[in-house]
């Protein structure tokens, strides 16, 4: 137990010097970090605080700088600007082998000439651990990732899932204050990936360790992480809990990157009590709840997630209709995409635009299904809409 908490302890000790309580300062503080390759600004002034015990995901499309940021945390790149404080100590210029940080590499980077046991023991030997302690720790790690009986195998005698476990065990063996995971599940097939996601989360919770995972897969980030930082063109554009990121994205780009979304450009804006009536070209006037932050004068858009859109043949029953069905849009089914659990319909609106609606297939028989060119009413409440200004 004491060992499991060592990360926080060290953070607390180091923070004592800075006269800031550990809880407030957090384990890792990234301050204005930037990295330029030639003329390309890969990471452009990123600041971020990560608390001990967090499972943090860096999410973004390829080339957004998330991997460069991770490599700066591991020490493979030195930032051109900014500070990286781990437990209050600036490690920005420290070499990789001097950092209490370990990384799980994207393609695992297992040493092909060493057995599973020697791969896991590699970091422990470098730390000068006693032979008997190494044996104990390796056995512990092997049990942790359920690789018993495979200790003598070489990496090329293992399956992809087993290799992933060896890589994880090797990175965890030194009990780092911070574990960095670079696309840890990208090389696994879908079913295995889902199981491994759950195992990673369970492991992280049990060890109480701080994980930072880099991924381009938003579902993976949403499933595993307690907080997600979205990166775009070297900048951190939003840091939020998964639900907040999905339901309240800060910009059009984030809304489109994380999940599916219907976007309607606004042309006019009217106040109506606690609501806004926004005139759109493609979907007519839409009533939306007034956002918490006042809407500026700039270009705005109404956004609605497909699963928030309800469809019906005739429109909602009158008693339910007052609040939640204030936005009623007529159209015809233009496209049907059956996905098993849900069906996504594309509705060609009479007002000109296209609205995507995702409907749960709650009945086994297709009595509720719509057919192509069928006339439908799509409806959604003001609270289900988001107003995006950038």
């Amino acid at each position, binding site marked *: 137990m004491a060992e499991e908490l060592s990360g926080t302890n060290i953070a607390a000790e180091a923070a004592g010097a800075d006269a800031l309580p550990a809880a407030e300062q957090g384990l890792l503080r990234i301050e204005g970090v930037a990295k330029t390759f030639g003329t390309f600004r890969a990471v452009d002034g990123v600041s971020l605080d990560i608390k001990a015990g967090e499972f943090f995901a860096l999410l973004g499309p390829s080339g957004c700088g998330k991997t460069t940021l991770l490599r700066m945390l591991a*020490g493979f790149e030195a930032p051109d600007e900014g500070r990286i404080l781990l437990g209050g100590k600036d490690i920005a210029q420290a070499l*990789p082998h001097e950092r209490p940080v370990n990384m799980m590499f994207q393609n695992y980077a297992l040493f092909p000439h060493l057995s599973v046991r020697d791969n896991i023991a590699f970091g422990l030997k470098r730390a000068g651990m006693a032979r008997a302690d190494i044996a104990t720790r390796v056995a512990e790690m092997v049990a942790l990732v359920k690789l018993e009986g495979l200790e003598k195998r070489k990496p090329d005698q293992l399956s992809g899932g087993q290799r992933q476990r060896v890589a994880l065990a090797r990175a965890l063996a030194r009990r780092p204050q911070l574990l960095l995971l670079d696309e840890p599940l990208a090389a696994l097939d879908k079913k295995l990936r889902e199981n491994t996601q759950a195992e990673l989360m369970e492991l992280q919770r049990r060890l109480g360790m701080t994980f930072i995972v880099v991924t381009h897969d938003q579902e993976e980030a949403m499933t595993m992480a307690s907080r997600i930082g979205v990166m775009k063109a070297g900048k951190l554009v939003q840091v939020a809990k998964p639900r907040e990121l999905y339901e309240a994205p800060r910009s059009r780009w984030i809304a489109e990157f994380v999940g599916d979304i219907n976007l309607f450009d606004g042309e006019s804006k009217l106040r109506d009590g606690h609501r806004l009536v926004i005139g759109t070209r493609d979907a007519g006037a839409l009533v939306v709840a007034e956002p918490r932050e006042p809407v500026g004068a700039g270009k705005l858009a109404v956004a609605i997630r497909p699963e928030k859109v309800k469809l019906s043949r005739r429109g909602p029953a009158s008693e339910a209709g007052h609040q939640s069905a204030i936005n009623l849009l007529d159209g015809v089914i233009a496209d049907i995409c059956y996905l098993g659990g849900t069906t996504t319909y594309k509705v060609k609106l009479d007002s000109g635009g296209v609205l995507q609606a995702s409907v749960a297939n709650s009945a086994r028989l297709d009595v509720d299904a719509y057919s192509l060119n069928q006339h439908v009413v799509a409806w959604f409440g003001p609270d289900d809409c988001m107003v995006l200004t950038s």
Partner: protein
Amino acid sequence: MNSRRIFARPARFAAIAPYVWMVLFFLVPFAFVLKISLSQTAIAQPPYEPVFDLTAGWDALTSAFAALSIDNFKLLISDDIYVFAYVRSLTVAIIATAALLLIGYPIAYGMARLPKRWQAVAMVLVIVPFWTSFLIRIYAWINILQHDGLLNQILLALHLVSQPVVWLSTDTAMYIGIVYSYLPFMILPLYATLAKMEPALEEAAADLGAPPWQAFWLVTFPLSLPGVGAGVLLCVIPIVGEFVIPDLLAGSNALMIGQTLWLEFFTNKDWPVASAAAIVLLVMLLVPLLLYERLQKQQLEQGR
């Protein structure tokens, strides 16, 4: 069905082609040399006896067979000249190959770590000397190393020496020549293994607490051993039998086996002894080759 018939024949031919080649250009000449090595020198044309004459009848053939002996091999073992020549050849090959490895490895490693487009340039730079005749390059070294050659001029100009150093006809000159000539054969296989190695492996070692030299020694070097093996063999085997470089650059007091062989063949006109010397050399070189082959087979089986 049809396509099988079209492809089956050339495929089968392709499979036996190497064997035909080996029999025609290796085994048959080898049989000739082996036969001559068991013969005795004679003042005749050809300069050895017995001569197998297939037209002379069965009795002549059997008596010719009976005349074969291993006397030449006994001579090779009993005469110090040959033993010394073999020992010297092996010593030169081992020292030169060690030097080649020490010089070639850092170059290959540096090449493999260059940006991709510079790697191609470096590769060309390594290969480009081959475009000039080997002999011309060795003669160039004679020019550089001679009494008033470039090297001595530079050394004198820098006041590193007060009078010209004797380079030519020394072992140093020979080693310079050998290392210079064989360096590409050491660099290329090393480069090939190092370039395909995942760079993340060294990063992983560093991440797990290994300082750079440990990361190299514990990860990069062991993984480059197949390249080291290939480079060493590509150098050791031809250097043992090297003739031109020691003949042109080294002194004449200690001969390598290639030079001894040449003397026996052309100066002494003793074809049988020269052949025996060649056979012994071949056997000496086959041993490390077979060992290497076994090593590779083991590695392949481990990989499964």
